[in-house]
């Protein structure tokens, strides 16, 4: 018998530190597989955020840099400008990229910075214990919205990929989820495309991945998938939100 599924070379052997059922691990695997399939593990520099994924720099097999909270894309810009022939990606949570890092999220896209961003959206600040994020759904209970997010008070959640898609320098923007095997395979296709866009130097690519947080949502890992489908998917526009002609031709 042959091994048909296992750990990709794009990941180290270190077991993930994430909570049981946290889908960060799935997204890690997808990125690891893409790095291997495109044969770019040795040419890639990843940038880790602050938050649960702050330790992702130990899990990927490529070079990695840890950034300050929200600054991963500015750091990635510096790396890419220094090494334009290398592949540079950021791996960031929604709290990191859509709150404190919003200015950079907008401007890397506006500049068409030739980097790839993987945004993992689980609708909370996970690492600090489940506080409200800009991506928290209306009515969602978190430790800083204990009565449910009141959109009249704090505004509606921000759909960052949709905003980024309006900017000229963003040539590929996709919003995926890892709630079902089918969607996981689709997310991988999008992640792969986002790296290929960079390989061809076409511009900025962002893939958002709706993800779960069993610990802070207070649900079982399986129930979290249902919650994601019922609560997050209707709020966030899903699919390949933007693709230039050049990207379509890939």
């Amino acid at each position, binding site marked *: 018998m042959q091994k048909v599924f296992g750990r990709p070379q794009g990941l*180290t052997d270190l077991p993930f530190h994430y909570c049981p059922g946290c889908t960060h691990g799935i997204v890690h695997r997808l990125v690891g597989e893409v790095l291997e399939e495109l044969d770019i*593990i*040795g*040419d*890639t*520099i990843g*940038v*880790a955020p602050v938050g649960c994924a*702050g*330790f992702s*720099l*130990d899990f990927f*097999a*490529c*070079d*990695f*840099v*840890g*950034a*300050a909270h929200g*600054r991963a894309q*500015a*750091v*990635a*810009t*510096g*790396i*890419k*400008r*220094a*090494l334009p022939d*290398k592949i540079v990606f950021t791996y960031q949570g929604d709290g990191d990229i859509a709150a404190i890092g919003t*200015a*950079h999220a*907008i*401007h890397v896209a506006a500049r068409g910075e030739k980097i790839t961003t993987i945004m993992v959206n689980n609708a909370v600040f996970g690492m600090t214990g489940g506080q409200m994020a800009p991506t928290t759904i209306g009515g969602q209970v978190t430790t800083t919205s204990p009565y449910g997010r009141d959109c009249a008070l704090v505004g509606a959640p921000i759909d960052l990929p949709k905003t980024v898609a309006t900017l000229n320098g963003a040539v590929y923007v996709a919003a995926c989820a890892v709630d079902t095997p089918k969607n996981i395979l689709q997310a991988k296709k999008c992640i792969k495309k986002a790296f290929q866009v960079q390989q061809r130097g076409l511009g900025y690519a962002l893939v958002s991945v709706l993800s779960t947080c069993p610990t802070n949502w207070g649900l079982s890992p399986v129930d979290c998938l249902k919650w994601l489908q019922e609560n997050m998917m209707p709020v966030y526009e899903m699919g390949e939100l933007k693709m230039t002609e050049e990207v379509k031709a890939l």
Partner: protein
Amino acid sequence: MSKELMKGNEAIGEAAIRAGCKLFFGYPITPSTEIVEYLAKYLPKAGGTVLQGEDEVASINMCYGAATTGTRVMTASSSPGFSLKQEGLSFLAAAELPVVIVNVNRVGPGLGGLGPSQADYFQCTKGGGHGGYRQIVLAPSKGQELYDFTLEAFDLADRYRTPVVIMADGFLGQMMEPVELKKPAQAELPAKDWTVGGCRGRAKRKIASYALTNEVGEANNLHWQAKWARMQDTLQRWESFHAEDAEYLIVGFGTCGRIAKSTVLAARRQGLKVGLIRPITLWPFPVKAFADLGGVKGILTVELNFGQMVEDVKLAVECRTPVFSHNRVGGMMPSEGEILRKLGQVFGLAVEV
């Protein structure tokens, strides 16, 4: 070698290019703007790139990214903008990344004003960001030093893997002076065997500064502290001017050091034994300059703030001689005459102004 007449800020830009700086990330702010303007014009011709960040926070973090690759990189700003860079500086110090940061001080606090100031002394030398870190701070006092120190700052940054701050002020940045465009010294620097850039053919590397356990956190801090202690021991630099036989010392850096020089000469003409210690490294502070105070009867510090460096002078002097300070703020400069008057007043000397 011929000299060129240039603005202080332009001298900084030219030195950066000649030092091999390949990337500049910045954001315009008076009175440092000519640095980004000069580099935007000339760095591309030298094979480099200037990228205007969306803000100062982006700029310093772009520097952080570029520095992880071992590329020589610089940013420049003025006081409020420098404030925004503080988190980034703390991260640079912790990740031990070489970056040159210019702070052309302007008046504060708040939005302040555009005049010259030295009110960022604490912020530059004490670690304006969080966590208790150190960084080299150089204080030029004229156009030539803006050029020379910028040139050298890149070597110091690489040698010690540290951010290096050039602390100037609006007066120095804006003034035109002749500058000799010296070639960079051929310094032997440690190999950059720590950079990221793709792990093909070698083990993966990571550059980060977090510690998951307190034990690791303490070990990290001890490592950094050992380096800072080494720097404190080896890097102190100052200029002594008629200090050997001085009975009264003026201590001033940058623009104030420059004004104090003519004050010393004026005092000497009156037969007063006045000398000057001009700190060149603000961190590490030149404590050694005050080791042997000989016949010094008193010290007067002169600063463009309400008295910040004076604290380091007092720590260095350890109450062996009285220390007074003379301060101008809000963009105003002390004159030779008023410093003389202050000397006379605090030390009971008969001075003619």
